[in-house]
């Protein structure tokens, strides 16, 4: 702000003044953009709350927390939707985390350089696959296979959704976990190998723990990616609102919160009870992903603190 113009020829002076103006302008724009992200979050949160909290007053709580979701007849039980989202997300996590981490370890630690140069872009292409395409593959190829393999009444189940969501989450996990593993200093590995550790021992005992915060972030972002996904789950999970009561529920159709909002938002009239309940589901979804994010950053923070303690 307080600049001292260097005395000199008039031409130069004007030039300096001009660049000064540009400078101020650019920093103002960047500042505004920086604030805008926060403003957007607050606005979205306010909007969700103002539209969704009305549902709590309009629908009795015992109806809201019942097991029947059939909004066109006034059944607004959201339990099957919450259980459906959790079921599919947990299934996707169980599927994606081992495969994602193993791929990341392979790409970062084991694969030769040329293979790595091929693997990383290919995995990132997987991330760019539109979810509707995956859903289509799920209907045509995956669901019939699952039905025959497990002898199920129908292949459109939570399991199909979990597998496809896992495929969606894998690139996120691989990409971030691989970066984290890559960031571990070479000297750590050299030291481990020098004292006689095998390659596997080095990976499991040294590299992976050193990259732990990044790996945890990768897993959490992968889960976040899975829980918010809509199109694929709407196409392959069958959308039947059943409350999951046991492990067998993974082999049954299920209905997630995201699919419910997507399928029904277009139909509701503004300001109706159904409309408010859909926003309430949006709030719950928002709170769940907020919790996932908070857990992720808390974990990263704790790991960092511990690492700092050791180093000091």
């Amino acid at each position: 702000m307080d600049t001292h113009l260097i005395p000199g020829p008039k031409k130069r002076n004007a030039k300096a003044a001009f660049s000064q103006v540009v400078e101020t302008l650019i920093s103002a724009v960047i500042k505004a953009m920086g604030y805008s992200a926060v403003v957007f979050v607050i606005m979205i949160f306010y909007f969700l709350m103002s539209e969704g909290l009305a549902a709590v007053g309009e629908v009795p709580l015992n109806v809201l927390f019942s097991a029947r979701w059939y909004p066109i007849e006034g059944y607004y039980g959201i339990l099957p939707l919450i259980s459906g989202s959790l079921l599919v997300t947990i299934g996707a996590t169980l599927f994606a985390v081992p495969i994602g981490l193993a791929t990341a370890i392979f790409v970062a630690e084991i694969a030769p350089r040329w293979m790595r140069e091929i693997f990383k872009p290919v995995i990132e292409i997987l991330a760019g696959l539109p979810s509707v395409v995956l859903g289509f593959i799920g209907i045509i190829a995956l669901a019939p296979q699952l039905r025959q393999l497990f002898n199920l009444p129908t292949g459109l189940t939570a399991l199909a959704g979990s597998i496809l969501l896992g495929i969606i989450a894998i690139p996120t996990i691989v990409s971030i976990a691989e970066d984290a593993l890559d960031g571990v200093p070479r000297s750590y590995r050299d030291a481990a190998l020098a004292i006689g550790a095998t390659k596997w021992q080095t990976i499991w005992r040294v590299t992976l723990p050193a990259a732990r915060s990044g790996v945890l972030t990768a897993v959490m972002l992968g889960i976040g990616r899975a829980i918010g996904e809509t199109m694929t789950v709407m196409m392959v999970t069958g959308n039947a609102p059943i409350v999951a009561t046991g492990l067998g529920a993974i082999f049954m159709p299920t209905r997630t919160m995201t699919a419910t909002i997507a399928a029904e938002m277009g139909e509701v009239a503004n300001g109706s009870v159904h409309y408010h309940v859909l926003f309430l589901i949006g709030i719950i979804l928002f709170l769940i992903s907020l919790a996932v994010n908070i857990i992720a950053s808390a974990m990263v923070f704790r790991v960092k603190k511990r690492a700092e303690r050791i180093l000091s």
Partner: protein
Amino acid sequence: MDFNISNKRFWAIIVTMLKLRFLISILLIGLLTVSCVSQSTGTDSPSNEQANAHIEVKGSDTMVNLALAWAEAYQKENAHISISITGGGSGTGIAALLNNTVDIANASRSIKAEEVNQALGQGIEPYEIVVARDAVAVIVNPSNPIDHLTMQQISDIFQGKYENWSELGGEDRPIVRVSRESNSGTHVYFLETVLRLGESENKALFHPNTLLLPSSEGIIAEVRDNPNAIGYDGLGYVTPDVKVLGIQPTPDTPIVIPSIESVSQGTYPIARELFAYTNGEPQGAIKAYIDWILTDPGQQIVEELGFVSVAH
């Protein structure tokens, strides 16, 4: 080394392209906004200008192919009229009419009393026009030995009173119920006419494990593939690779197969009218379009697509 330098150059080019892309996308967003604004001012007054009128149609997925065929043929004859068609379901179309964002809402069910009240509250007067008739076919997998059912049996199947095909004289297989989402007019029609057998005090509901699929294609795909499945869909959508069941209105009446003849004679029990709703009596370009639909060329298209003409 050389590889490294060229790599850096490569990245510099990528970054420049990204920057450019950012600028271009801002420009595009700007252009789109401008064109949207000018378009919406165009639709606000469709009646005062006969030339270059734009008609916005939205609603029933059952009718979307029909609406597209009408629009295509009509625009061929009247080059100055542009018609845009969107699906999404009958409920979606009626909601859009209530929010005053469309000129014509297509619906495969009649408008509900609550919707009329809500419309009147918002200064909209829904005006109903019957544009075609349609049979809803009950379909099973071709390998299913059953080829006809009574209305009562179908109602009980979808309510979950039967769990296995052997209870109906079929193979020992679980029954998988397949339905459209609840924003579908076909869903509501099926609920009222089949599950509740047309009785207004009957409060029967679909069994919670009924699969709710977002599209007609999804239903056909599941029924075609899954020998356990039973579903329903507009006759115009039924493909030859699923089996259409004959229906007995009561156990001692003859079996009726859905067809143009049985619908126009009134013997097929699950036949309905397809509606177009406008805000008030149609005027100007919209009136001309509706009149064209109701007369010969329009009704010919109805028959070509497997629906039943209102002229019969």
